Structures are given as structure tokens and as C-alpha cells.
């Protein structure tokens, strides 16, 4: 049963809560007897189905922030491109931002549709070894709005994990929306059987960003996801004319560096603001191939290498290697 069923009353404690069926809010709920008997607390069978489905996936990495607009999708897309530059690796990119799916555009896959076969939904391939899934592929128009409450978003995420035919995959990268809500809880819950290698946290230098990112890091601790490290994006802008650096998003409280020191987390790297990144994303091209010698591209490649190193030295509980 869903954590909060559609017919639950306003202050439903949740079907997996100790108070399920017993709290005053449960009076009159059609599910009260089921909850009180403990039957609703049984784990969602989808978790085991997903565990089995993803045994062919070696590494699962979440890309998180607490803050919107810091570059999660940009990083997820380019991490995927960088990992896929090794032809011997199979890479999968899953976009669970249900309301604002940016991945199709950034990967140059706008307008693509998803096909169903006997073995499930086929993801969209941008390269032979790079597969992508997003709700963007299920929408028929760029104006379509996905106006869904939490439970419906959770159902979609479950389908993405259980019903997509990913095949043999070395890295599954999961791009998330900002926040610490339904999408994040669902990803963690549905992957609880299959295991998550870790999370990469993206921030920008200023405190308005860091204050949300600290919450995301707390979330990771609470749900026991290891934090691979933090990336400080939009970290300074070098004027193309006079070459002076401006801190457009100033690190008034010490930026990601100080936060990482305080929280004892690795700072994976800093990526400068580069207008060519935004342009590449809008055009659906990888800026790692467009401007490979740019400081931003070099920073990205260094960060990707650290993630590769982390993945090869850590394994999830079900990972045979």
C-alpha cells in the first residue's frame, strides 16, 4: 500500500508509521483496519522486483542538491557523457524530475518517444552505450504540464526503476529535482533492496544555496546514503575580454570548501561559470566535446575521475565485484 493512500484522511500518519490505524486521524478511514492489523506495513513488493531487475546494474549514483538551478541536470548529463566515452562501459541516465525534466533537452533528445516491448520500456539511446529515461519522453508537447501530487510521482518513479529494460549497465546515474520530498524518498525506498553506491551533491558558492544543501546532506545521513562528495558549480566567472574573475555568486560564508570542512566531506571540485556550458545544454550537445580544453571541462573530467575511483573502490551490498 502507498505510504499515504489516496483515500486517507488529511493527517494520515502514513501506512508504515507506528501509529498506522491507531491515531485519532485514522478514525473513519477506509484503510483503518488494514493499517491497524499491520498488513499495510509489509514492504512494497516492488522493492524486491527492482532489486532483481537492477542486479545487472553495477553502480548506482544519485545526483542531488537541496537547491534548484545549481547544475544537477547539467552535471548528470555530462557525467554520463564522460563515463560513456569509454566504449567498454554501458551507461544509463534516469531523470526523476517529474515536473521539470531537463535531461531530454540537455542530451539532445527532445521529441524522442519511449517504446514498449516484451521486456519492458526501452530507454532512448543517445549513443550505443548511453541510455536515457525521462518523463519528458512520455509528454507529447513541450507545453504539457505534469500536475501530479506526490503519490502519482512516486508511482512513475517505481515504473522507471522496475519497468525500464536497462540491460547490463556499469553506471546508473539518477538526476533528481531539488528538495527532500516525494521523489527523493521514493528513489531511496525503491532502491533500498538494490543499493545505492552514493550521492554527488551539487551546490553553488553562496549561502542561499549552501543552506539548502546542508539539509540535503542531512537527508542523506538520515536515509543512510553515502556522500561521494560535493561539487561547487558556478564558481567564479572569467570575463572573456579582460580575463578578470568575478564572483557572481559570492562565497560569503566560505563556499563549499568551508561547508565540506565543517561536515567532513570531500570537495570533488569547483567548476567555473562558462556561458558555453549553458549554450551546449540548450543545443543538446556535450560541452566536454565542444570545448574540451576549457577550464570547466577540465574541472568536470577531474571530478568524473574521482567518481570512477570511488565506484571501483566501493561496492553496494548486492554488487558481486
Amino acid at each position, binding site marked *: 500500500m502507498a505510504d499515504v493512500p489516496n483515500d486517507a484522511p488529511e493527517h494520515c500518519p502514513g501506512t508504515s508509521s507506528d501509529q498506522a490505524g491507531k491515531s485519532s486521524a485514522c478514525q473513519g478511514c477506509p484503510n483503518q483496519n488494514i493499517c491497524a492489523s499491520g498488513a499495510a506495513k509489509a514492504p512494497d513488493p516492488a522493492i524486491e522486483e527492482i532489486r532483481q531487475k537492477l542486479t545487472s546494474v553495477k553502480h548506482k549514483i544519485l545526483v542531488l542538491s537541496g537547491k534548484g538551478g545549481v547544475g544537477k541536470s547539467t552535471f548528470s548529463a555530462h557525467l554520463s557523457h564522460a563515463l560513456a566515452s569509454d566504449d567498454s562501459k554501458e551507461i544509463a541516465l534516469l531523470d526523476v524530475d517529474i515536473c*521539470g525534466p531537463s535531461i531530454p533537452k540537455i542530451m539532445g533528445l527532445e521529441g524522442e518517444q519511449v517504446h514498449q516491448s516484451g521486456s519492458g520500456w526501452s530507454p532512448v539511446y543517445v549513443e550505443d552505450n548511453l541510455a536515457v529515461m525521462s518523463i519528458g519522453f512520455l509528454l507529447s508537447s513541450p507545453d504539457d504540464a505534469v500536475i*501530479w501530487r506526490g503519490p502519482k510521482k512516486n508511482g512513475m518513479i517505481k515504473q522507471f526503476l522496475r519497468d525500464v529494460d536497462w540491460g547490463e549497465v556499469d553506471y546508473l546515474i539518477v538526476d533528481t529535482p531539488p528538495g527532500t520530498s516525494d521523489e527523493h524518498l521514493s528513489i531511496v525506498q525503491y532502491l533500498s533492496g538494490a543499493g545505492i553506491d552514493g550521492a554527488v551533491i551539487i551546490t553553488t558558492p553562496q549561502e542561499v544555496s549552501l543552506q539548502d544543501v546542508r539539509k540535503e546532506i542531512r537527508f542523506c545521513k538520515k536515509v543512510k546514503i553515502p556522500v561521494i562528495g560535493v561539487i561547487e558549480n558556478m564558481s567564479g566567472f572569467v570575463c572573456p575580454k579582460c580575463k578578470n574573475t568575478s564572483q557572481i555568486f559570492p562565497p560569503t560564508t566560505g563556499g563549499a570548501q568551508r561547508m565540506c570542512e565543517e561536515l567532513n566531506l570531500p570537495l570533488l571540485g569547483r567548476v567555473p561559470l562558462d556561458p558555453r556550458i549553458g549554450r551546449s545544454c540548450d543545443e543538446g550537445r556535450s560541452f566536454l566535446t565542444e570545448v574540451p580544453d576549457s577550464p570547466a571541462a577540465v574541472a568536470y573530467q577531474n571530478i568524473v575521475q574521482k567518481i570512477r575511483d570511488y565506484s571501483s573502490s566501493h561496492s553496494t551490498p548486492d554488487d558481486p565485484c
Partner: protein
Amino acid sequence: MDSSEKGSLAQVKHVVLVLSGKGGVGKSTITTELALALVHAGKKVGILDVDLCGPSIPRMLSVGKPEVHQCDAGWVPVYADPQQKLAIMSIGFLLEDSDEAVIWRGPKKTALIGQFVSDVAWGELDILLVDTPPGTSDEHLAVLENLRKHRVDGAVLVTTPQAVSTGDVRREITFCKKTAVKILGIVENMSGFVCPHCSECSNVFSKGGGEELAKLTGSVFLGSVPLDPLLTATLEEGRDFLQAFPESSTYTAISQIVNTVLSSLDA
């Protein structure tokens, strides 16, 4: 409609939502600057911050960690100024530890937003601005459902120039159309950066997308706000940018946007 049905919003003249589909485009920044500009123009303003996972408003207005009190009419909002011209409600005030994550699913978020709308004693306000998180989900539906008894004048949509942003904002426009929220106009934020050293303008996040989106969707283009490190820095410090830098082009841009919004409310 009598005032008892309108409840705590009975004396609120106008309600304006600040929306985007996209995160990080400057909704909270624009909400804050609109609020300050309106206060400077002599209005009584309220800000309802319904971003429960990432509440940015308290820091931007330097209101620290005040206690939220109850009175007969409900929760007392927090005032950003001694003259009580700017009232705020945010989950940020209810968290003991500001690093505490609010890890709630939709229904719990919906319930708190209901309380924020109905149980806060806003009193007499010229405008209530509602700052929202990105997306088209529980928070947005909760706000509209709870405001159903009160008129929502419309929404200001914020975007940055690039297509990845306008792509999400198009979906937000559809949300507004489906929920019968009038679009007061589109603001293009982070619209160009003028280097303080050599005055070269760089289009860090591309150019023109906001204006194109307005044309494409038949919406009013309210104006562009440049990428201004002084604006970011004053928000970090919770200072009033409009008082600190009244000569800046950013100030001019924001003032023009405010004037256009005010005229559309009075029309």
C-alpha cells in the same frame, strides 16, 4: 463573499504568486525585491514562503530565527521591519535547527500550507506575495486550493534566458492556464552580466529567452533583471538592495517591473 468566509485573508487586497517551473532562476530573489520595492512605495506587504524544503526568504530579509507566536486570530507573522510594513511567514521560522531537513511527502506539505494560508493573522495588507518552490505539484495545488475562497490576482513567472529554463516555464504557464491563474507577466532574470572591470556584457545564461517565451505564449514581458553580484551579495547579507544601490541598472529594472505589476493589479 463576507469577510468571515475569507478568514485570515479578509483584509488582503491583492494576492500574487511568484512561480517558475525551473529551480534557481530567482523566484525568492524577485519576491524579496518586489516586496521591498512595494514597501518603499508605501504599501503594506506580506510574503508567504511555501517552499518547505528550501525556504530562502528568511535569510534574504535578515529576520533571523524569531519565535512565531499565536494570537486570537491565528499565527502572528514575523515582521521584517519595526514599522510592520513587511510581514513574512515561512517554515524557516518553525525549524529549531536551520540545517534540519524537512523530509515530508506531499500530504504533510499540503496540510502545513493550508495552515499558512488560513491560520496566519495577516491583518491589513495591500499585497500578499506567495513565493513557491519549482514545479507543478503538491505545494502549488495546496496554495491554490486554500486560496480558492480569496481572489488570486495572478502570477509573476520568473525565468532565466536559456532554453533549459524557458522549457520548464512553458509547463508552468500551462499549469496557470489549467488552474485559471492569470499570468501577470514574465520576468527574465540573470539577463546578462556586465563585467565590473571592463564593462563587457557577457550572456552567461544565454539571451532573450524570456522575451521570446512571452511572445510565444501571448504573455506580458515584465522586463529583464541583469546578473548583478551586488544583488546576490546584499541578499546573502539580508540587506535592502534597493536602498543600498538606487543608482544601479538593476534597481531601474526592478522598479519598472514593480510599476507594471501594480498597474495590472489596479486595472
